[in-house]
């Protein structure tokens, strides 16, 4: 049963979208009777603090109104992220920072909406991202948004799954862009494989090519993400193949650093909850890793492939925290962060020694970095109780 849901989010919450954060629930739609239960769960931290896993936590980015979604190059010396830091563009643009010098270069063209970048893991000369800059109206829309914001109004956050989103690859040497998807529909949330030859991404293109029933047409208008599924393609955009075909929004896929696995999250059909999934590198052998009865998204594998880190609002609608789960989902997830507000979009450095994530713990959302305690993570996962339900469920 599908219930029409609103794509609304309180303005204080950052949600970089997409590598998986489509908020299908507004504050208004959260049943109030859940409140006491949520609070009770929130207080169960068993005396474990985030210092158990994280050392020397510190803010990494400071510029602009907000910054989020940081991803590393294979050598860990560059990070690419999205940030609202230019006065003439109200939307995110993509930037790449040299972690030796702190110098930052803009990767995206400076207009249009952009999101979801990733550095080619075989050669950091190439960076992919999703953008609407080829939409002939993009400059006009940008101006409208600037005027809207200048009027002092604040939009409640909503991600519109603009069908003009396509995936582009920027060549840092030639400074040229190549468009690697060219299909009507939302193409975004891309990530490279370890050898840099493949891109996995999310797209709702099928809704624009297949014949829709009246009910499906209504669904598309209410929630275009419902039709999103995962696709694989060669890094130049050739050989596109669909690897999921289930109701509900599949998105936010990442390869493991060794290229062996793909992790992603799938929303329930009604868009209320999401869980973490894993598959082998060509999309085969898909299995569900969590049954966490909350919005669990943005999964990312530790480079040892021993466990996955992800974000979930188990503690309350707007309190996203980071959790760990073992790679095959044999155990219940283990909570990592204990800070009110938003903690999400976690990424390990390629050597596994540090964690970068997006959080609004000190005000506007920015990237934070901390030393990662791998031994403590393994120990906590070992001690976690067995998964309560659905552990052996095969979802396809």
């Amino acid at each position, binding site marked *: 049963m599908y219930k029409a849901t609103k794509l609304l989010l309180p303005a204080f919450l950052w949600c970089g979208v997409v590598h998986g954060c489509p908020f299908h629930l507004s504050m208004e739609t959260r049943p109030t009777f859940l409140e006491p239960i949520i609070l009770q769960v929130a207080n169960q931290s068993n005396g474990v603090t985030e210092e158990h896993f994280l050392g*020397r*936590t*510190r*803010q*990494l*980015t*400071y*510029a*602009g109104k907000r910054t989020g979604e940081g991803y590393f190059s294979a050598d860990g010396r560059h990070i690419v992220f999205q940030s609202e*830091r230019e*006065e003439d563009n109200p939307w995110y643009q993509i930037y790449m*920072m040299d*972690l*030796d*010098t*702190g*110098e*930052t270069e803009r990767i995206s063209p400076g207009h249009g909406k952009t999101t979801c970048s990733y550095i080619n893991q075989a050669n950091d000369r190439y960076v992919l991202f999703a953008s609407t800059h080829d939409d002939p109206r993009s400059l006009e829309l940008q101006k409208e948004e600037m005027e809207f914001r200048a009027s002092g109004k604040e939009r409640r956050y909503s991600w519109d799954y603009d069908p003009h989103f396509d995936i582009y690859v920027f060549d840092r040497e030639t400074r040229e862009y190549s468009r690697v998807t060219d299909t009507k529909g939302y193409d975004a949330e891309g990530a490279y494989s370890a050898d840099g030859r493949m891109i996995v991404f999310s797209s709702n293109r099928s809704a624009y090519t297949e014949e829709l029933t009246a009910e499906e047409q209504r669904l598309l208008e209410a929630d275009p993400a419902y039709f999103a599924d995962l696709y694989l393609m060669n890094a130049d955009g050739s050989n596109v193949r669909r690897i999921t075909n289930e109701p509900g929004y599949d998105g936010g896929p990442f390869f493991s650093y060794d290229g062996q696995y793909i992790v992603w999250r799938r929303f329930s059909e009604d868009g209320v909850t999401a869980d973490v999934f894993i598959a082998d590198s060509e999309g085969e052998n898909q299995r569900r890793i969590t049954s966490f009865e909350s919005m669990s998204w943005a999964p990312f594998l530790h480079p040892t492939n021993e466990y996955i880190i992800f974000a979930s609002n188990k503690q309350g609608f707007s309190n996203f925290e980071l959790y760990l789960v073992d790679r095959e989902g044999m155990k219940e997830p283990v909570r990592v962060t204990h800070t009110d507000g938003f903690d999400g979009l976690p990424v390990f450095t390629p050597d596994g020694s540090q964690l970068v994530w997006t959080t609004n713990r*000190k*005000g506007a959302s920015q990237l934070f*970095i901390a030393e990662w305690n791998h031994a403590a993570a393994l120990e906590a996962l070992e001690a976690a109780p067995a998964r309560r339900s659905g552990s052996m469920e095969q979802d396809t």
Partner: protein
Amino acid sequence: MRFTKHLAGALTSLVLPTCIPADALSLREHVEFLASPYLEGRLTGTTGERIAAEYLSAQLRAKGLMPLQGHESYLMPFDFVGGMSDSGSTLSLLARTSNQMFAGEAVNALSFSNNGSVTAPVVFAGYGIKTPDSSETPYDSYHGLNLEGKIAVILRYFPEDTTGDFRRELSRYSGLRFKALHAREAGAAGLIVVTGPNSPNAGKTVPMGFDTSVAGSGIVAVSADASFGESLFAGHEKSLQQIQDELDDGNPHVSGFELPGKKATISVEIEREKRIGNNVVAMLPATDGVSDEYVIVGAHYDHLGYGAGGNSLAGQDEGKAVHPGADDNASGVAVILEMIDSLAGRERDRHLVLGFWSGEELGLIGAQAFADEEVVPSENVAAYLNLDMVGYVADNSLTIQGVGSSNEWPSMIERANIRPGFDLTLANDPYLPTDAMVFYQNDVPILSFFTGAHEHYHKPSDTPEKLNYKGMDRVASLVAAITGNLLNAETPPVHVAVERSTQEGSGRSMGRVYTGTIPDYTAEVEGLMLSGVMKDGPAERAGLQEDDIIVEFAGQTVANIYDYMYALESVKIDEPVPVVILRAGERIEREIVPTVRK
């Protein structure tokens, strides 16, 4: 005490400067020297300050830095008033048949008075307040009065029974310097201030206080006690009590009046002890020697001496003790000395100036003197970086203040912090109670580095062993990185004019209302976080404590220190007002009884 003074004297005359160690000293060694008891707290104008200045000069010389162009020495002296005393000011009231003289306890010169003698007819001018013409409810005590060449008699403070915004407005313009200015502009030749029977400190004279500016206010001004008030209005149709009652509701139409037949003679003799402080300034010129632009990095090196000047937070049991000022601000000075080698060894497109200011604790007077002198015109200063109290790096955190002074700062800071890796707190407000404000007010983009207030702030216990020297070393690398980027940036940061939250919020002066709260200037919270409360002060009596966050005061929401100061302006002395605090997230309501600031 005598012994140490003697020794310090010997140090200056005999030992300095040849025996000051200056080879590759560590941060700790710099702090230990500057905060040693022999420097007696480095009060501006004292021998201890002078020894510190010589020490800094020796370090700069050893590192091969030059004095500023056109200067022989690193020392840049400035004059200030180091102390003042009333050496027998008098006041005489001359009526038709009598001549009454007031002296001693009954009369006190105001600290900003000119010296001299004036005899003239007396005019009573109410509270002597003039609010701006743009006010919603303008108030002018001088309206309709002719004061030309006469002596104005006015009441201290402001109409006592007023409330709300009007009270706040009147309170804002009730400072005695303001009042003296308006009296002078109205043509008055002299000013006598009386504290009315309805006011706090009723009938008392105004303590002389301390005014570091050398120049007088252009008017002869005294305060006089109740005996003068009585004599002045003797034979008048109303007593001072009745006169004040009529004024106290703030009705702007209650006017002052002449006192026919009454004349006064005011004689003021203030001895201002003029002293000399020293800024210590050096420069590393641009690599090719040619540039119009300067980057200045500075830290004050003076401190509170024995804590006699009123800024000390020493407990009464601590007596008269040296305030070593290890964190405040030997720490900032040491960090700059530490940075010099890395900055000297690189290419520079702009000149780098290093300024060690004195007189900061007396009211930013050293930095102000430097700015006023225009040795380096402020329009040529690309940016000013300030370090004031950077010795308490804890949990990898560091606060950078004044970030709102330029839009370019956040990205410059982001870049420079990649290697040091602090968990930074960026605070925007450029109106800071430290030297950076002088530069900001001259349209220079500023940053000020600060590791936070603490329990040893302005106390004899601010000693060197409490500092985190490894942390300071990392502060040095961050400040050096930002400085390096500024020296070579293609375009310097652009100054942003930030509106000041209050008109009169000059940081240190909090008006006449005293609550005994110690605000935490680093906390970025909604409300006013306290880093402590004064012993036996109103806040402590109300049960407030460290880390409480004041969110409401006297029924007004408090989002920041300015809101708090604003709320303070509307309350009455000795009358309980509600205060709401957050303590560990819990909302607690208390009652606080503000007292009069002594």
